[in-house]
């Protein structure tokens, strides 16, 4: 974001140094900050649309093979994946989404510390999610050979097409996990901006967009969880 150090006319009257969010001026090609914020949000939503479509590839592959092999799918899902882990991770992600909302609320109320605290909780949840995913799912699976497709070497398959179930599990959760990782970075970036005072009641566009991104990661998990772990 543009770091603006100049003070505008209003600020002089107050006689104090303005926080960056108060002194924010929109990009040179914008007519006003409102248009810029709206455009940024629209752009973000378009990007989120592409994310949904990206993941729809996994869902489509899932649907096709589930249609062909429903029993095998059910057995594999029950056998390889523990719903408890999935449930825990779902709750954690929901909580993190909630804290992002609270962070935005804090920005609206100009409570800088609360922005930081809420984002920190979000990031901890994201880390928890990844640690559980890798430590309790990926590593044991690699050790047992429950690997995708041609790498599948597990000794006791539940059906003929376990390896494809696991392929879809691996590629979709890994792609999702990658998004969580990216989320951790962008949330950290938002924390850095928040710490420097870039978010306030009149300007918190990038915080809002980071939040939108994080929610979409959550929504994708909301679908992945029942499809992979439950049905």
């Amino acid at each position, binding site marked *: 974001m543009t770091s603006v150090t100049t003070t505008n006319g209003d600020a002089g009257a107050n006689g104090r140094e303005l926080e960056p969010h108060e002194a924010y001026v929109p990009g040179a090609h914008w007519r*006003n900050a409102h248009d810029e914020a709206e455009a940024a949000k629209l752009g973000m939503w378009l990007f989120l649309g592409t994310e949904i479509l990206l993941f729809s590839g996994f869902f489509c592959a899932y649907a096709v093979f589930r249609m062909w092999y429903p029993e095998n799918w059910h057995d594999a899902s029950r056998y390889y994946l523990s719903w408890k882990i999935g449930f825990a991770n779902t709750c954690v992600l929901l909580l993190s989404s909630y804290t992002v909302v609270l962070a935005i609320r804090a920005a609206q109320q100009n409570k800088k510390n609360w922005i930081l605290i809420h984002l920190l909780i979000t990031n901890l949840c994201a880390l928890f999610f990844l640690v559980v995913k890798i430590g309790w799912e990926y590593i044991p699976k690699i050790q047992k050979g429950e690997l995708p497709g041609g790498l599948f070497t597990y000794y006791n398959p539940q059906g003929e097409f376990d390896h494809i179930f696991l392929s879809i599990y691996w590629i979709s959760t890994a792609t999702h996990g990658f998004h969580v990782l990216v989320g951790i970075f962008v949330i950290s970036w938002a924390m850095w901006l928040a710490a420097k005072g870039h978010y306030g009641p009149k300007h918190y566009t990038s915080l809002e967009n980071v939040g939108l991104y994080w929610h979409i990661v959550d*929504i994708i998990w909301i679908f992945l969880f029942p499809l992979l772990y439950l049905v």
Partner: protein
Amino acid sequence: MNHEIHHPTTIDPDETLSLDEAHEGGHEHHTPLGTMTWVFVILLFLTALTVWTSNIHEIVIGHSVIEIGPTPHIIMAMVIAVIKATLVAAYFMHLKYDKPMNTVVVGATMFGVLLFIGLTLADLAARGSIDRQELAPIVVGGNKHLDADGNRVDGAGVTQAARENSPDAHHGEDHGDDHSGDDHSGDDHSGDDHASDDHADDH
């Protein structure tokens, strides 16, 4: 046919670029804490609900037992997931409070997703209807794929493993090396039932 110079007054109500808003600042709506908390609680409840319903395999009503197959399960899970996603999108993501354009974007996206998945499934489900063949499976002697080093190898260990998946047919730890097609030599047509033709016939 009275002609006038075109006066560009057609301003879309949703997309107004009126200068009146210029001083309103970027954001009008403040996030209501109570609503958001309720949404969060409902989301947690729905998550628990979806786990609970997925573990019901039969319903006992009086003396009759209704078995719940995979299809009702997936419908139930998807309905709950859609409700959850809608809640997140509408409240957490502010769609409810935003300009409708963002909702249009989401709608278009979902339309695309449904077309993609729906029509693809429609084709693959209808595939067998005319091309049904009561024949032996295709010999996959020639089927190849790449191993981890990028070399072509014949029918993979996994297909073999899947083929011999009876509980007593354990393949030991050495199975991972089994990609070279060595155990392929003895295969005959008739013994080869792993070709995935059966989905074309059965579904």
